[in-house]
């Protein structure tokens, strides 16, 4: 067996009582009871799962992406299961701003959830109009700007994969709300670190790394894509190592918090994202397997941290960032 690489030794701390673990985290102006959020598009508008999941106990519910007008979404087939993952091509189907504000938001608010509203726009001006309307809604704790949908012709991941456009857009949106502004980034870029820095420069409170990876599957019988649109977004355990590397890169590039996302199925997966610098995580595909997956991860995190003698989750964030993990900018150790 080879010698252990230099780095912080595994902390030989005394276990902490499970109930004493502090899971609270801060994302800019937003303080969350725990670091586990639902990933946009995998938890509806929160009310669909409310009869089986106590949404108050989640760090936050990130809603399905809301656009100015209702969207019908993409033609079927919209789903394909692949090895340890799934491709989706939903195409931002949603009820639109008006119905979201009138019907969905009051309901979600009544359930006591911390609501982060995901916003989608084909242009900076569309995002501006959405924030004009929602920016001061009391029921909303924060916004996640969906800069990374791989399944739309306009305003998708490719359009937003330009650092200057991102920086200018975030800077235009920043004055429209005092609530947390999070930018969700695509992994299909040359450097997610550059995009994360651009969002930080523009005034974002946090970035999410990352959305689904563009993927494809071929129907060899009919010789066509197995999805209605040629490509889709890959999620699930298949992308976890890839997403973890993007999360690590983003966390080393910025001083604002990073929310890790991509293939998190259990608490140990979440611990890995936190270890490489994420302050919080999003759970998506796992919810399709078990609607209460995110809550199980909250409980699991508490137990895992307690067993490791870590009293506060923020002390675990970035424990790997001190390690010489290869090329890249100097490591950052969060102050916690």
């Amino acid at each position: 067996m080879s010698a252990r690489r230099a780095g912080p030794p595994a902390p030989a701390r005394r276990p902490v009582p499970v109930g004493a673990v502090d899971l609270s985290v801060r994302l800019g102006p937003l303080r969350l009871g725990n670091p586990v959020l639902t990933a946009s598009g995998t938890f509806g508008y929160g009310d669909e799962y409310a009869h089986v999941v106590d949404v108050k106990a989640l760090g936050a519910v990130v809603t399905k992406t809301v656009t100015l007008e209702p969207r019908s979404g993409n033609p079927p087939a919209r789903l394909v299961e692949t090895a340890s993952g799934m491709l989706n091509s939903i195409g931002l189907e949603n009820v639109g701003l008006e119905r979201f504000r009138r019907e969905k938001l009051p309901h979600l608010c009544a359930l006591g959830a911390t609501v982060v509203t995901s916003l989608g726009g084909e242009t900076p001006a569309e995002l501006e109009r959405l924030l004009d309307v929602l920016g001061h809604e009391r029921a909303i704790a924060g916004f996640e700007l969906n800069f990374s949908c791989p399944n739309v012709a306009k305003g998708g991941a490719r359009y937003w994969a330009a650092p200057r456009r991102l920086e200018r857009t975030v800077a235009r949106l920043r004055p429209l709300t005092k609530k947390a502004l999070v930018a969700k980034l695509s992994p299909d870029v040359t450097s997610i670190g550059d995009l994360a820095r651009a969002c930080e420069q523009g005034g974002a409170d946090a970035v999410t790394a990352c959305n689904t990876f563009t993927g494809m599957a071929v129907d060899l019988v009919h010789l066509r894509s197995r999805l209605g649109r040629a490509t889709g977004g890959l999620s699930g355990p298949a992308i976890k190592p890839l997403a973890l590397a993007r999360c690590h890169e983003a966390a080393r590039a910025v001083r604002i918090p990073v929310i890790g996302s991509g293939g998190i199925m259990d608490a140990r997966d979440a611990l890995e994202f936190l270890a490489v610098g994420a302050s919080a995580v999003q759970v998506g595909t796992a919810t399709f397997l078990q609607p209460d997956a995110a809550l199980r991860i909250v409980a699991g995190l508490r137990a895992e941290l307690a067993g490791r003698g870590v009293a506060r989750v923020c002390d675990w964030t970035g424990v790997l960032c001190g390690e010489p993990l290869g090329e890249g900018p100097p490591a950052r150790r969060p102050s916690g």
Partner: protein
Amino acid sequence: MSITRPVWRQSRGRVVRHDDHGAGHRWLELEVKSPFAAPGPGQFVQLRLPPTASPVLLPRPMSVASVARSRGALRVGFLYAPVGAGTRALAGLGAGSEVEVLGPLGRGFPLGHRGTPVLLAGGRGVAPLLFAADVLARRRRAAVLLFGARGRTQLARLTDAHRRLAAIGGRLHVCTDDGSLGPRGNVVHLLERILPGLAGPLVLHACGPHAMLKAVALWSLARGVPAFLAMESMMACGTGVCRGCALPRSANARAAYVPATASSLHGSREWAMCCTEGPVFAAEDLDWERIE
């Protein structure tokens, strides 16, 4: 379209019976822990195997073929064929194995609909229709079952179908594509053939491959006979959240779609969600030209 709150629950099921049923079919019976509402004919559940027992990620939607209560627990039966990685893994589960069960999901056959019920089954699509025949019998309504398959060996549970239809005073007609049992042809040909002997008005309930359902739907639309068809679609969540199982609405259904009254669990003007609005759809609600 009514807005209903979901009633499904997450539960665990224990395999209490799992047998070979010939011609590649298997019969699975699970004892499901409460709280779990009894599914009706046409409804489905999502079955998820322990990750160590299955190479697939997503749960599999399985149409319910029987429901019985025994000692306070619910026994739910399924007829399936191990044709993909998920169902092949399922086939390996022995008695006593545990699976995760989510349900009951979707909307089943509207068995209270007016008219003489004619049940049209293709292959293993017979299972939920035998369940429907039992429920109809309890309501003192005899059903006619038209059962078709590629050949006689694909007529799954044929003996059981004979026995159960006889017990409830129903009638069974059989056909095969290759003529190995009953007249050669599909269930629509069979329906045409026996139509003069049926007391109208009729209502059709069908389950089978999409090509068969399309033939039934087009036949019923041309004659103004109400028909309800159990559709399939690739699903992830099964609960209306992932929006993956979209089916095209007909022009009339698009025109009648009122966003203000539609539940967000349902689809959009363009697309219906198979999991929450279906899997059983009225023939006039879908655009059959765009269904494969």
